[in-house]
């Protein structure tokens, strides 16, 4: 398990979601092991030993957004309710502990909260997330909480502006120092993907790595596919995009085999997109500014629809990219994305993420996703400056 802890510590550093000196893991095999920043490690160990779970991560996020969300929350509130689809589906809500409610030993109360949820925020300490059966799962849950607090905080800022001392400064430094320019330049793509299985697999693996390395997606979220004649090659469900070797399923178009039962839950969406657009490849990720911007809608005041993220029938527009609603998997995204994505080569799903196409190879799809996210990022800051 130590190798796993080492690996996911590395990932938290690489995706810059946790501070280098503020990461700790605990895992229990037949004995409890802890590793990382001593104080956090002690907390992680003390908490995990009270849980019927395998692993736990406690880490200080590189951005103070989670703490700000707590400070901005109302008096009686005990959790944050994120609006984006992925976290809504898998996390529901994120409980938090305020600094003033922290006892000398926060482990028991933390364990109690984690007894019901995958991750919690402890003000002034960080994000604590459990993995029921693997260390990776703890990392994924940390990643989800980080993602959802990031998205929610940016969303809330647009609505309510800064409210707390230090918020503006922190936001400016986030913009100036944390964010990096996003680009596709300097990356190698096969211009026109052949029908060769080996080439396709290698290219999907490489593109998957790129999306993570360039900060376009967190390593867990998203999926990638390419079509070759009667076959779709698609990343598997719960696969990390930067580790796709051995995790790409070939799925026959005529459903003559069900080996693709492990394929991404968006298989149906990919299949329909291919049918309707003639594209060769599809890239799907959850770049954060696109997710934030997708949830802005000027009709909110007068609209009667409650669950916009799945029920909104309108096609909106973000810089020429259509925005549609729709749930993951068998829930309608597969109905709404295919008809709109052909014209622009990209589409945004409300509160969820971005799909882009390549007609010959991944270069086009990757560049398109970068463009969409860059547009949304600029548009976000433009609105913040207003």
């Amino acid at each position: 398990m130590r190798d796993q802890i080492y690996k996911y510590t590395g990932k938290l550093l690489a995706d810059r979601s946790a501070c280098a000196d503020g990461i700790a893991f605990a895992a229990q095999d037949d004995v409890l092991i802890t590793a990382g920043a001593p104080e956090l490690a002690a907390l992680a160990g003390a908490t995990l030993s009270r849980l019927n779970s395998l692993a736990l991560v406690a880490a200080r996020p590189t951005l103070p957004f989670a703490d700000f969300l707590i400070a901005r929350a109302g008096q009686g509130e005990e959790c944050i309710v994120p609006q984006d689809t992925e976290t809504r589906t898998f996390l529901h809500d994120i409980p938090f502990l305020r600094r003033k409610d922290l006892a000398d030993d926060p482990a028991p109360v933390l364990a109690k909260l984690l007894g019901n949820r995958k991750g919690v925020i402890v003000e002034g300490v960080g994000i604590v997330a459990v993995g029921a059966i693997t260390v990776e799962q703890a990392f994924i849950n940390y990643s989800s909480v980080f993602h959802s607090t990031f998205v929610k905080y940016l969303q809330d800022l647009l609505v309510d502006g800064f409210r707390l001392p230090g918020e503006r400064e922190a936001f400016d430094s986030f913009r100036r120092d944390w964010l990096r320019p996003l680009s596709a330049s300097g990356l190698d793509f096969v211009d026109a993907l052949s029908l060769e299985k080996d080439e396709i697999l290698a290219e999907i693996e490489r593109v998957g790595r790129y999306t993570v390395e360039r900060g376009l997606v967190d390593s867990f979220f998203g999926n990638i596919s390419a079509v070759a004649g009667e076959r779709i090659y698609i990343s598997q469900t719960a696969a990390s995009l930067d580790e796709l070797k051995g995790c790409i399923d070939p799925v026959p178009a005529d459903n003559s085999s069900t080996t693709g039962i492990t394929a991404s839950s968006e298989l149906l969406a990919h299949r329909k997109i291919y049918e309707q657009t003639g594209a060769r490849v599809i890239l799907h990720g959850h770049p954060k500014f696109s997710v934030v911007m997708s949830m802005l809608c000027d009709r909110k005041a007068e609209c009667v629809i409650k669950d916009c993220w799945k029920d909104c029938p309108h096609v909106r527009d973000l810089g020429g990219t259509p925005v549609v609603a729709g749930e993951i998997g068998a829930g309608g995204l597969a109905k709404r994305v295919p008809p709109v994505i052909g014209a622009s080569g990209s589409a945004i799903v409300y509160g969820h993420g971005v799909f882009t196409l390549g007609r010959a190879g991944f270069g086009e799809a990757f560049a398109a996703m970068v463009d969409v996210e860059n547009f949304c990022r600029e548009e976000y800051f433009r609105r913040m400056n207003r």
Partner: protein
Amino acid sequence: MYGWTGKLLHVDLTRGTCERREIPTDILHAYLGGRGLGVRLMRDYFRLGPFEPDLPLIFAVGPLCGTNSPTAARLSCVSRSPLTGTIYDCSAGGRFAWRMKAAGLDAVFITGKSPKPVFLSIDPARDELHPAQSLWGKGVKETVAALSDHGSVTTIGPAGENGVLFANIMMGEGNSIGRGGLGAVMGAKGLKAITTQGDGVTGIADKERFDAARGDVMRLFRASPVIFGGLGIAEYGTPALVDLMAQRRMAPTENFRSTFFADSGNYSGPAIRKECGAKKEGCYGCPIQCKKASAAGEALPEYETVNHFGALNGISDLHAIVKANSLCNELGLDTISAAATLSAFGEARGRFPDAAEVASLLADIAYRHDQGELLSLGSRRMAEILGRPELSMSVKSLELPAYDPRGAYGMALAYVTSNRGGCHLRAYPISHEILRKPVPTDRFSFSGKARIIKIAEDVNAAVDSLVACKFAFFGATLEEYGELLSAVTGIEYGPESLKAIGERIYLTERFYNCANGFSHDHDTLPHRFFEEAGSAGEGIDVPPIDLARFEEELQKYYRIRGLDEEGRFGDRDLLAELP
């Protein structure tokens, strides 16, 4: 009280009495229902032999049954297995569970032995035993048809009447209480069938919270490729696993001599759909509807059944497999144990049964004719009698299902730690080792598996007590089901408290088993898996399992469970610690 009815029907077949009694509320809160409640109710009886009249046969539903909770219209049947000698439970769907709850019952507790065959009718107005002499000897279909006026029917077939050690109890809707031979327990009691009807409704404490939780569950079902994906079980049923197991090189073939069967495509999910016009069917009120039926309404086989009548016996004819399945359902035989016993028999005599022979052997088993007498004992006893004990591919006498343990080490460990013997549904590591839910794990590694198996056994003991379907957990988790339960009962439950309940149930079962002589020596796999390789292919090697590493992880598992090196409790009196 919300969720539970708080009532148990006590039936004494010896005296011919039916009496409704209260179940203490704290027991319901601590054991939920289903498996947990049944196991708890066995506390004073677990030392009795499977065919002793005083041994209870228990049917128990859960607090979610009767509500609109997805996949929860199920029950558990609990007793002691004549095949394995262990405490035994099985979860089953169909309409019966829902009707039993609607009749105002959380459990039916049956003891004694009727001098003449009877059937039991459950009705809110009157619970009654009726003579069933005329039904004795009848097949399942005919019995169900004869009793359908009384509501939903569960019955045994000839196999249960004749004491076949792997006889099922069959639900009228085609579901079965399978594997451990509880049909024979029912038969020994002289009980042919139970019918139930009622119109009670299960109260929900917080409707709004319930609806929100249900929405969360449904969203996760839709996000799960295994459940609602285009290639998932809602579309193809569990035979969706045929292609996957072939590709992963872990489809047990010819009595586990190999792990790949070239003709398995003949009975894959798509093949069954094409050949049999499979349409969706399922347990009552379940949104998944994973069961499939032919155009004519005949129940089509599950994955384990197609593999075992198929690859395990070297049979590639789909229609012969479907026929074998139907025959088992009609006779009241467990398909996995039946097919695995035939396969072991085939290897022992040097020739696996062909398609035509299978049908006649199945009938012989149910009626204990000719060779059927020997085969009716299950593979372990049969192989021992034939002087080839190593050919029984079983753990604690329960025949292994269609997941070769050489292809998934968590599965290997799960088979031996399962309290009811070689079963895939306890820790169910296929979920993460093969189907990548909730996250993937390395199937060729033992690392971390002891803890993973322990946690999963606790989770599933809770799931079996809710009583929800395992398949729901390819998408949802105890987080959402805890919400459903809290909303229904008005009592707060969450993943950790549910796992604690699961742990209590699991340990109780293990304690019963230890008291009946089970220990480390029974927690092992047939030698074949440590000595012979499976079939390599597609870049996958399937070496024998490393016995030393296996044993090391098993010892870890014992430590995590708080057991001694023999897998026992030492001086600890567990039952005295529990509610």
